[in-house]
């Protein structure tokens, strides 16, 4: 090992992180070696995963606490020197990976019991450990090659996670889409790092000087935005995301949505951090992409009636919110406004944590619902709050958090972004800064509507199917990880001050030059926030304490009866609001982007026959843009087949023609000879 630099804490942190990656890589081995249906194999795998995560968390905390980054040079690794490193940013992104990853492993062992899934339980556990390890390596990579190798490992490991149930056609289709998108992203990243190596002098991540050609910088930004944007699920590039998330087992969806998407954000943050003097337009583009993703993400979410797909669209929304923060910070760096940088980056980073926490919580909750009723269809649920009270309560915590309502964590990060955007809009800054703030506000309102719909249809009312009526509460090993996630959501919500130093370190690691060591607490009264949150919780507790006896007495006095329905005797659960009808008021405003497809019942005569109504919302980008585009391409290729006749001579002729053209291009006979000159 040559060249290991940095303060002790950082070096220890990096080593712990790498050690954790090693343990996690091997964590699936016991499950692989022991028989398919054996419980002990999967138990040992979970234990190893937890041990790896614990070691990694220690490392991440050490990295956050360290005063300077650590750097490790490994000679002769992939084509030249391998560069690994650890700084506060790596530590910051590693924490949710390990926390959510460890809890997901615990949840997954019960959720995807090897006794019930002997076919793919072992592969699932092995790929899960591999995915976590590749995420850690990605965070530690400090040169283009190591980064790409970790990136590709992550893409493949998560692909195998997504296609766990490969026997189902829609899962295979979702997996293919994911794989194609992953590789499109990889292509962009290969080009990106080649360009970065040219601009920054070598594949090691080095600062790109302000003297670089503006065109090259623009290309760099575009490649980063597309390459990392695909992975993060930024709006026009998101089409792989909903199906992949819906098709994967729920703890994998939690990992994908909570953590893997964040690697796109991490890549963007890391790459943009290398550029010494970013132009203002980058920040504007990021703000626009963020606003678009946030707003239309939630609009699409509102229209879904598949629980996991709905949550997946909310991931797009939250990635948009994170991008808003990042865009604000980039704009701040371009204009030299330290307060924009600090507030934007604080919101961006903290929302990375928050989204990882509440989205995993929600996916675990959705998994529990799926586990209990066997369906992801929202319209087949109902009344689960009575049958699964713990799941319902925990899901509610996640729902409040994702709606960015105080006193939970989503509120804190979105408040930071709001304050930053408000400073940009109200100060001497340009007027456009008000637009993203408006988009963020509208997004929050629509998110509330969406989760009122989800919670109302799934957990309240009366059961819409027999499965929902017979649902049982999720077992404790599935509830415990959810409870921990909910506790983390509450903790960040009421005591953001506790977590502020970590965020400050992350900001400082990203933008050393802007005097970002100010601390975001200066711009955001964290202490007052804590007081307000505590008061809110106290108030809620008081009200519920006061109301509880009233409710109990009311229930004792009256027998449980169906709601009064004006004397109509044929009331059935199907008379309740459905997910679509609840959201129709809002989604009908967005028909131009959602393009819903309806199959209306045909009602003829006084006694019409039994009929049905069907509506579906396909992903607009995929169905209206990509699929027709690919079909057109295939038709074009069919025409090319005419030139493909199997004659060797003909193929050789094509080669000759290509060679002659190349020769002509390189020799350029139409130029005078002097121009080529030389000797």
């Amino acid at each position, binding site marked *: 090992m040559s060249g290991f630099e940095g303060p002790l804490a950082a070096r220890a942190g990096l080593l712990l992180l790498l050690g954790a990656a090693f343990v996690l890589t091997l964590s699936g081995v016991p499950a692989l070696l022991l028989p398919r249906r054996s419980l002990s194999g999967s138990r040992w795998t979970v234990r190893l995963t937890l041990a790896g995560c614990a070691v990694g968390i220690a490392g991440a905390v050490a990295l956050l606490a360290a005063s300077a980054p650590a750097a490790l040079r490994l000679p002769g690794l992939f084509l030249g020197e391998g560069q690994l490193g650890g700084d506060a940013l790596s530590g910051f992104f590693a924490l949710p990976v390990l926390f959510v990853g460890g809890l997901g492993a615990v949840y997954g062992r019960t959720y995807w019991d090897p006794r019930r899934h002997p076919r793919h339980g072992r592969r699932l556990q092995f790929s899960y450990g591999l995915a976590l390890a590749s995420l850690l390596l990605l965070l530690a990579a400090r040169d283009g090659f190591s980064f790409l190798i970790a990136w590709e490992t992550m893409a493949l490991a998560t692909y195998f996670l997504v296609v766990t149930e490969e026997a189902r056609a829609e899962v295979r289709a979702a997996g293919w889409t994911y794989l194609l998108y992953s590789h499109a992203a990889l292509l962009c990243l290969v080009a990106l790092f080649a360009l970065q190596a040219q601009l920054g002098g070598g594949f090691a991540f080095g600062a790109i000087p302000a003297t670089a050609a503006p065109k090259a910088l623009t290309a760099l930004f575009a490649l980063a935005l597309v390459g990392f944007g695909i992975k993060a699920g930024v709006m026009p590039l998101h089409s792989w995301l909903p199906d992949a998330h819906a098709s994967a087992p729920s703890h994998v969806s939690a990992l994908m949505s909570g953590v893997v998407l964040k690697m796109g954000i991490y890549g963007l943050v890391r790459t943009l951090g290398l550029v010494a003097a970013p132009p203002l337009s980058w920040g504007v583009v990021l703000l626009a992409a963020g606003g678009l993703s946030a707003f239309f993400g939630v609009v699409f979410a509102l229209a879904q009636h598949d629980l996991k797909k709905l949550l997946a669209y909310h991931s797009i929304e939250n990635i948009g919110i994170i991008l808003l923060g990042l865009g604000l910070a980039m704009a701040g760096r371009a204009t030299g406004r330290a307060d924009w940088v600090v507030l934007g980056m604080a919101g961006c980073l903290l929302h990375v944590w928050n989204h990882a926490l509440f989205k995993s919580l929600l996916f675990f909750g959705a998994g529990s619902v799926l586990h209990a009723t066997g369906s992801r269809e929202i319209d087949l649920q109902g009344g689960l709050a009575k049958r699964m009270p713990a799941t319902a309560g925990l899901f509610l915590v996640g729902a409040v958090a994702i709606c960015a309502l105080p006193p939970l964590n989503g509120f804190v990060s979105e408040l930071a972004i709001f304050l930053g955007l408000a400073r940009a809009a109200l100060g001497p800054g340009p007027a456009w800064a008000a637009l993203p703030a408006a988009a963020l506000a509208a997004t929050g309102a629509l998110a509330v509507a969406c989760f009122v719909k989800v919670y109302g249809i799934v957990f309240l009312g009366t059961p819409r199917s027999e499965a929902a009526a017979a649902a049982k509460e999720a077992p404790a090993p599935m509830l415990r990880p959810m409870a921990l996630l909910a506790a983390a959501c509450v903790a960040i919500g009421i005591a953001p001050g506790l977590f502020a130093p970590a965020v400050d370190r992350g900001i400082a690691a990203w933008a050393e030059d802007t005097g970002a060591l100010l601390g975001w607490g200066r711009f955001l009264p964290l202490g007052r926030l804590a007081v307000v949150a505590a008061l809110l919780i106290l108030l809620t507790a008081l009200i519920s304490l006061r109301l509880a006896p009233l409710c109990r007495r009311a229930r004792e006095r009256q027998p449980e009866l169906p709601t009064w329905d004006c004397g109509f005797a044929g009331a059935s659960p199907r008379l309740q609001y459905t997910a679509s009808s609840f959201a129709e008021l809002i989604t009908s405003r967005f028909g131009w982007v959602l393009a819903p497809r309806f199959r209306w019942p045909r009602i003829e005569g006084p006694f019409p026959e039994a009929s049905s109504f069907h509506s579906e919302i396909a992903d607009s980008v995929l169905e209206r843009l990509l699929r027709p585009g690919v079909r057109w391409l295939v038709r074009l290729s069919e025409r090319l087949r005419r030139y*493909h*006749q*199997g*004659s*060797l*001579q003909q193929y*050789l*002729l094509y*080669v*000759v023609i290509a*060679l002659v053209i190349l*020769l002509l291009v390189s*020799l350029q*006979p139409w130029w005078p*000879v002097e121009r*080529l*000159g*030389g*000797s």
Partner: protein
Amino acid sequence: MQSLLEILVAGLLLVNLVALGAGRIGSMVRAVALQGLLLGVIAIVAHGEASNRVLVLALASVVLKAWLIPAMLFRALRQVAIRREVEPLLGLLPSLVLGALTTALAVAAAGRLPFAEERLAPLLVPAALATVAAGLLLLVTRRKAITQVVGYLVLENGIFAFGLLLVEAMPFLVEAGVLLDLFVGIFVLSIIIHHINREFASLDTRRLSQLRE
């Protein structure tokens, strides 16, 4: 010395035209054998001091191209018992005209190439280009598997002639490796020829078109 080299290089060009204009497979193979021999002599003459490396390479090339491979081809020709006519896709006369045209173009193009190596023989670069072009022409317009092999050989001869310019810069192993590749390639091809013949009772590569997707 220089004039001898010029004559040899001109011979190289002539042999190209002979191979293009040959109506019998046997004369094509003989032409390409002669070309191999000429190349070996050119290699020795061009590098007058005749270092060991050049000598070994030239000898290996002569043995391989002027004797071993032609012998294998003649053997294959006897074994498969086919008609000895070339049966080109493009007539012999048009082939010759095209060959002459490409030679002229090669001379024109060579003037534009930024080669400083004029001291060897001014004709060597155009001759090499013309040989490559002739090889490609043979590959494209001849349909029998054996004539395809001859086309590849002519193509390789052209590349070898280029290599003569760089013989001091190019590592010995690379050239030896190229020769070995060529030998193995021809070896495999002659086996394939045998099998194609047994399968289809013909050596017409157009029969292989059924293998397409």
